[in-house]
């Protein structure tokens, strides 16, 4: 009996060791990035690398001075908020209709964007947007990023709508409520938390998306992610500023993801797994 308890304790200790090991591997690169961003310029490239240093904000100051970092950030915000809003506007009613009618092809259609390489769409978009003079416009960027946000909104909300008992709707129907009214007045308040999760996930993935802005933006509308490439170009010796830029770009999605981490898995697998 005592033997079993000792073995059990050892197994638990072994598991804790593995957990810590995994945690260190996962966290170390990010910690290193953030540390480097606060290092004085001569310490960033010191070899052997230093762990103890006097932190400074020089890299962040330099970043905002030598690059239009803040206007890139504003572009990212405009494109991300715009595409998230568009995704919600189109996605909420569609998810509701799919959940109600069980006719799922509209939801599956939007998934196509999740499967095909982005370049497949980018080639015709480039030709089309150029013809109507929209290359470099926020409109083109928001529309292209809504292709990312729409399936996220629909597939995160589907299980939420499915979870509402049908009797709730039937009662409302008997009272003479139109379908649209049922959606906005009855169903939507019931899935409010699902809407919040879908909005945050849509925001994160739109913010993180690289490829479309690379081609569809111009100097004025360039998003942070698309501009990251420029920071690398200039920064072969300016690692401090590069890491400051990387830290700032990663901050919004990380903070938002931390807020909804509990609901993330089922949302991220587009309903393939119940988390």
């Amino acid at each position, binding site marked *: 009996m005592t033997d079993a308890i000792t073995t059990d304790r050892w197994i*638990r200790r072994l*598991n*804790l060791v*593995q*957990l810590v090991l*995994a*945690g260190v*591997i*996962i*966290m170390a*690169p*990010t910690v*290193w*990035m953030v540390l*480097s961003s606060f290092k004085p310029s001569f310490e960033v490239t010191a*070899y*052997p*690398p230093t762990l103890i240093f006097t932190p400074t904000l020089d890299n962040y100051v330099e970043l905002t001075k030598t690059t239009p970092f803040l206007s890139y950030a504003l572009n990212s915000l405009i494109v991300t908020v715009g595409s998230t809003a568009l995704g919600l506007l189109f*996605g909420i*009613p*569609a998810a509701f*209709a799919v959940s109600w*009618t069980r006719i799922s092809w*509209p939801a599956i*259609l*939007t998934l*196509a964007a999740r*499967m095909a*390489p982005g*370049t*497949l*769409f980018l*080639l015709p978009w*480039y030709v*089309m947007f150029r013809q109507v003079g929209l290359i470099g416009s926020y409109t083109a960027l928001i529309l292209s990023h*809504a292709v990312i946000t*729409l399936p996220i909104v629909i597939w995160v909300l589907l299980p939420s709508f499915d979870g509402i008992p049908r009797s709730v709707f039937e009662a409302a129907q008997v009272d003479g409520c139109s*379908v*649209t009214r049922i959606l906005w007045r009855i169903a939507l308040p019931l899935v409010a938390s699902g809407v919040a999760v879908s909005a945050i996930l849509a925001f994160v993935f739109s*913010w*993180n998306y*690289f490829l479309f802005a*690379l*081609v569809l933006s111009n100097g004025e509308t360039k998003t942070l*992610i698309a501009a*990251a*490439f420029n920071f*690398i170009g200039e920064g072969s010796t300016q690692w401090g500023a590069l890491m400051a830029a*990387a830290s700032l*770009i990663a901050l919004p999605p*990380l903070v938002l*993801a*931390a807020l909804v*981490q*509990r609901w*993330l*898995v089922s949302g*991220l*697998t587009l309903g393939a*797994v119940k988390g």
Partner: protein
Amino acid sequence: MSDTAATLTQDRQKLEMSALSAPAVIFTVGMIAFPVVYTIWLGFQNFSSTGKQSFAGLANYSKLVSDVEFWHGLWVTIALYVLSLVLQLVFGVWLALVLFHAKRLPGIVRSLFISPFMMPPVVAGMMWLVILDPSLGAANYILQSLGLPPSDWLASPTWVIPTVALIDSWQWTPYVALIVLGGLQSLPSSVYEAAQIDGASAFKTFQRITLPLLLPTIVTAAILRSVDLLRFFDIIYITTQGGPGNASNTLNIYGFRVGFEFFNIGYASALMLTLTAIVFGAVLAFNRLRGAVAW
């Protein structure tokens, strides 16, 4: 309510439902379906360096067959795909088991574990570029302190694919782990109790019971990762742009450069349609596999 009135409300309801999904459907047809059809048409066009367009028939596809760069890109794509997928599935299942036995995880720990795949791949590329710098990076310092030879990592034609696979696996293994963890948590506990009574060892229990029951979840994770891995772009574009030389020139990177650096839109369309067919083929194959291992 009379029958006709009932059909009337039903018809009205159908109409209202169609109206609700119409914006999403119209948007998707306009932004995806129509452009894909347009890409198919573009694949039959030839774009000269001056931007003149002419019908090319199957020329883009016959060019593809004899294009050394295409076959090289296909090889790079598949090598990177297989290596990354194996790494992420093996370590993902391991991490899921570790997390499963840890039972209560505080929210902050969960947040830290999901942080790699919630940050932009572009940022992951930036940080690893600095860590893996051949002369001043922290990675080589650690290797040397352990008495191991330093590596050129992303700058080495031999090591660039494993290195990129490593970066992507750092980012997405926790994601695979969380999916598998969801599968573990939904397994019936009764089978474990039976195994315990039969005196099966921990390893045997895992091999004979947990793993087979977990296979459908693992295949689901494999599908979700396949879709991303076969279209590999962000990390490579940020770190190597397909280099050194063409050592990490995946099909997606190659197609992008053909289209937007050399402006050969017709040939790029043919390349991207081929890549799309490969992605869909992989998804279909895994879907059949999922059917075979379902329980």
